[in-house]
Structure formats: C-alpha cells, structure tokens
C-alpha cells in the first residue's frame, strides 16, 4: 500500500511546463530519490507536494487524504516535512529554538495559559525543550544548542534543518539536496544519518540529490525527471541500466565513467 500518491501532477509557469503529468506511488517506510538534470522540475515537484505551489492538474494524496488546495502549514500538519535546497533556517534563533519552532503543531498551550504561565505550560515547555535537545543529539548538534543558526558551519546547518523537520513528527520527510556542498566525509555521515532516522522515526523519505553515490546507496526506489516528465522509475539497478536515463539524464560521458 503506498503512502503518498501522485497522479498526473502538472504545473506550468507561463509557457514553461515545469512538471508534466507526473505519477508516483511512494511506499510507506521507503527511501525514494528523485533525480534528474538541473531544471528538470524536481524542486518544483517538492513545492507542489508541500503546498508552496498549487498544481494546475492532477491529484496528490497522503494516506488517502487529498493535499490539494491546502496551505503549506496545513500540509505540514498532515505529516509532511521538508528541508530546503538553499537552507532556510531561522538564522537569528538558536539551534534549540529552531527545533522548538518545528514542534509548533505539537504544542497546545493556549494564549491565556501562556500569559498566566500555568504549570501545564511550564511542563509542556520543559518537555519540548528536552525533546528538542534529544533531536539535536540525534543529528550530533547537542553541544551547539545555544548557538545561533547563522553561526553554524554549512554541514551542521544542513543537519539542523533535518532535525527541525523531524521535530514536526512527520510521516514523510522531503530532503532537497541534503548533501549539496558537503565533502565526502560529511556525506558519509549524512548517509548514515538518513538511514538511521528513517528506522528510528519510522519515516518515509523522499530526497532530491545529485550525488549519485549517495542516491544509489540508500534509495530503494528512484524516480527520474527530465523536462518535467517522469522518464523512468525503479530500483537503483534498473535505473542504472535504463538506456533512457543514461541517454537523457546521465549522458554519454556518464557511461564511460562506469555508471
């Protein structure tokens, strides 16, 4: 049974069809990679699912619930979390506060009880802070909890973004180029982290990535986009050998490189 289903999803910008009739069915608990050359419509597809753009045609459902015409914050509430290609942390806030913002939908103190600082509020805040700290531990940033996000090095910002997304307690986690700009060592740590959180948090993960080593290593399913269209999907081995993919996406040079 697939958790997230896309049927005929289409988005046009002016004359350009950024995403064209894309179908996909993402299995619960899987790691799916979306690959394709620059401008293939990968991030646009993410934005369509997370509600930043509205699709012109098609349907998107999460566990049977339609995600069409929902605001991004509502979609987040349904259990979809994401990171961003061009890191969007809350820069002036500390690492811990960033996580706490991620927990927004799971905190229930009312305004009045906050103003009166009722014991229930304090308890909730304490628990939230502890939970947030644990999440920081998960991504290895516990000792940076009081650091402002803007002061963290690049790789740590990426990891903090993942932890922030995890704080929303998602069912599906979208990672937009999580390894971009990382050195091989950092990428290795990240790879392990992705697998670990999938297992620990019972997640379904969809990621956009250009680092083929990482993609091939962790994905169970790969979707290939080109000019907005899905040109192939399947497990890493199928994709590796798919002539259309090699032709359209990887190009002839890639064949020589032994992929």
């Amino acid at each position, binding site marked *: 049974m697939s958790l997230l289903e896309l049927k005929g999803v289409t988005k046009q910008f002016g004359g350009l069809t950024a995403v064209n009739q894309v179908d996909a069915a993402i299995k619960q608990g899987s790691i799916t990679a979306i690959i394709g050359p620059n401008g293939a419509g990968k991030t646009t597809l993410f934005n369509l699912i997370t509600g*930043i753009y509205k699709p012109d045609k098609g349907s998107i459902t999460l566990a049977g619930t339609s995600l069409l015409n929902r605001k991004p914050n509502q979609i987040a509430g349904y259990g979809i979390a994401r990171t*961003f290609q061009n890191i969007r942390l*809350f820069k002036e806030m*500390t690492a811990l506060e960033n996580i*706490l913002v991620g927990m927004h939908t799971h905190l229930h103190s009312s305004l009045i009880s906050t103003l009166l600082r009722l014991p229930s509020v304090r308890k909730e805040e304490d628990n939230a802070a502890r939970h947030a*700290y644990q999440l920081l531990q998960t991504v290895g940033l*516990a000792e940076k*909890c009081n650091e402002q996000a803007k002061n963290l090095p690049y790789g740590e910002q990426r990891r903090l973004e993942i932890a922030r997304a995890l704080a929303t307690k998602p069912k599906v986690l979208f990672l937009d180029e999580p390894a971009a700009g990382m050195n091989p060592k950092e990428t290795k740590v990240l790879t392990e982290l992705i697998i670990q959180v999938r297992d620990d948090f019972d997640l379904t993960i969809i990621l956009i990535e250009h680092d083929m080593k990482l993609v091939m290593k962790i994905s169970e399913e790969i979707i290939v986009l080109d000019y907005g269209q899905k040109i192939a999907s399947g497990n890493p081995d199928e994709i590796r050998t798919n002539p259309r993919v090699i032709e359209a996406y990887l190009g002839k040079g890639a064949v020589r490189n032994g992929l």
Partner: protein
Amino acid sequence: MEMSKWSVMMKDSPKMQLSMLLLFILASSASVYFLERSVTAFLLLLGSLLLLHYTSLSNRLKWIISLLLLVVIIPFATSGGTSQQDYMEVAVQTGIYIAMALGLNIVVGFAGLLDLGFVAFFAIGAYTYGIFASPQAAQLFHSDFFPLAGTWFWPFIIIGGLMAALFGILLGIPVLRVKGDYLAIVTLGFGEIIRIVFNNMDKPVNITNGAQGLSQINQPEIFGFTFSLASQFYFIVIAILLIVIIAVRRLEDSKLGRSWKAIREDEIAAQAMGIPLVKTKLWAFALGASFSGMMGVVFSAKNMFVDPSSFTLIESITILVMVILGGMGSVPGVILGATIISVLNLQILTEVTNFLTQNFSISDTLSPMKMQRLIFGVVLVLIAIYRPKGLITAKPKKVDPGKLIDQPTTDK
C-alpha cells in the same frame, strides 16, 4: 591598568555590583529628595535601572530591586521637593510610551512587520474611554446613563485594549497579504485614515466631536478616591506596564513568540513547520495593538481630553524610533529606547533650552528652543551610525543543556 583591574573585580563579584548599585541608588534618590529640582539627579535615579540591567545579579533579585525602585523609592524620592508632579508627569508619559513601544516591538521586532500607523491603536483606546466617559456619550445616545463614572475606568482599560485588538485584526485581515515595505505604507495609510475619520466624525452623526476633541472626561475613581495628579496616575501606569512587560516576556519564549520570530526570519520555512501565517501575524497585530489601546485609555483619563492632533504620523514614527533605537526584538532595549526618547523630548531638551533662554540673552532665530528638532535629528543619525543594532541588542535565549538531559523524556 587600574581601571581594568577595577572592572574585572566588578565583573566577577555580584556582591560588589550590588553594593555599588545600592550606593548609587541611595545617592541619586537622596539628591532627588533634597534638591529642589534637579533633572540630573532624577535621570541618574532612572539610570539605576539601566545599571541594574547590566549587573550579573539573579533575575529574581533584579525584579525585586526594580520593583522596589519603581514602586517605593522613585515615588518617595520625588516627593521631597516641589517638583514631584513634574517628575511624575515625565514618568507617566514615559511609561505610556514604553507600553506602546513594547506593543510595536511585538509587531516590528518579533514578527518583522513594519507598521507605520501604530498610533491609531492608541487613538482607538483613548477614544473608546473618551466617548463613554465624557458628556459626548450622553449626547450621542440621549441617555442619562452616560457619561460613565470614573469607576468604569478599570474595566475600560480592558475594553480599550480589546477594541484596539479588534481593530488590529480588522486591519490585519486585508493588509497582511501585503509584504515588506508595502505593508509599511498600507499601515501608514490606515493610521492616517483613522486620524482623519476621528477628525471628521462630528457629522453627519457627532461621534468624536471632530477636531474640537472630547473634553471633561472623567478621571479614574476607586472606593471614592479620584486619581487626578500625575503622581497618582504613576501607579496605574506602573501597574499596567508591569503586566505588559510580564506578558511580553512570557510571550517571547512561548510557542507564539517563536512563531513570530520564525515568520520574521523566513516565512516559507515557518509555514513548512506548520505555522499558519495569517493567524500568527494577526495575533501580533492584535496583542501589540491591545497594549497601545490600554494606554490610550489611561492617556485620555489623565488628560481629561482627547483630540485627533495627538495621533499624527509623527507619533507613529516616534514610537518606531524608540523600538529601533533600543534594539528591535529586545525587551530591555525597547524600554530603554522609549525612555531615552521621551525623557529627551519631554525633559532634557526643554531643560537645556530653558536654561539657555532664561540665563543668557540669545537672539531669537538662534534660540536653541527652536532647534529641538535639529538636535533630535542629530541624535537619531548618530545613534543609527554608531549603534546600528540598537542600544541593547536582542539576544537569543540560552538554555542550560545540563537541565535538558537529566530526565529522559517520556513523551513519545
């Protein structure tokens, strides 16, 4: 060398700091008490609150000392000479501005929404009480029930706040679709609209008495005691101000406060975290406005008079200057900024010019009295250039990681 040793010693010892501070408070309050009239001494006494902020005393102690200062020492020290009402008037007006600046700080500092029409909410609060507590209401509703007696002042603090909040929401609903500097001009337009409407609502139905303003507004009353002097209003203002400060402090580190800051930093990411944009922004507008509305009620009760000329664009800009000067998003900073600007405007510049005009004969054109705007302008430019992050920069809240690992969470 000596100096640095001294400062190291001061830095490391809270006890040392405390005793120095107490000495300072004692000296300045004594001079306020015994000198007939000394603006300097009064400012130094106020400055002790700033010193207190920079000490490394515990938060609880800071609260206790500042409460003592505000509720006991300052009212007592100023009661010594004939200048009590003068000092207290400055204190009351400063308090009113601090509350407004804290309200605007929620909107601009926390939520990052530039509002250039903030004084409109102050006007709404002032008129809410002004209309019902003056003969205007009797004439409007043809009822002997009005004007309301001074005892109604107390519920009206809340009603004024709520009315302002309501208008904050009414303004927010259409306006929040607009972003950035467009929002600035839209709020500016809203502020002007409110003022012009108040200025003209004497016809076709006379609601606000137009430019003539509302006079003979009843003063607050409780158990037969009427508040009429600045020194009496001082306590009302301090009480409201304390509530406002506590509220802002609590909001700042709450779910809502974090949502505001998240929206300020990055709207798209904030939405992706499940934060509803419009609702969160509306809360900022409503809560910020309500502080202003409450003080509007106090303002009209104190002056016993309101007219639209108190609510011009310059007022909105002045409040914004207070927030930016103090440090956007920083509660102590905003309090300091509001204090400096209002004391500067109400007391220091007046004193300096009075001193010069009464003691030297200066040609009229050169009179520093007329240069207040110039001086104010120079101060603003200097501050912008030399302290661009505000006088007290907002600092993110630090937590003690030790406290977070003790007990493993059970929440899952």
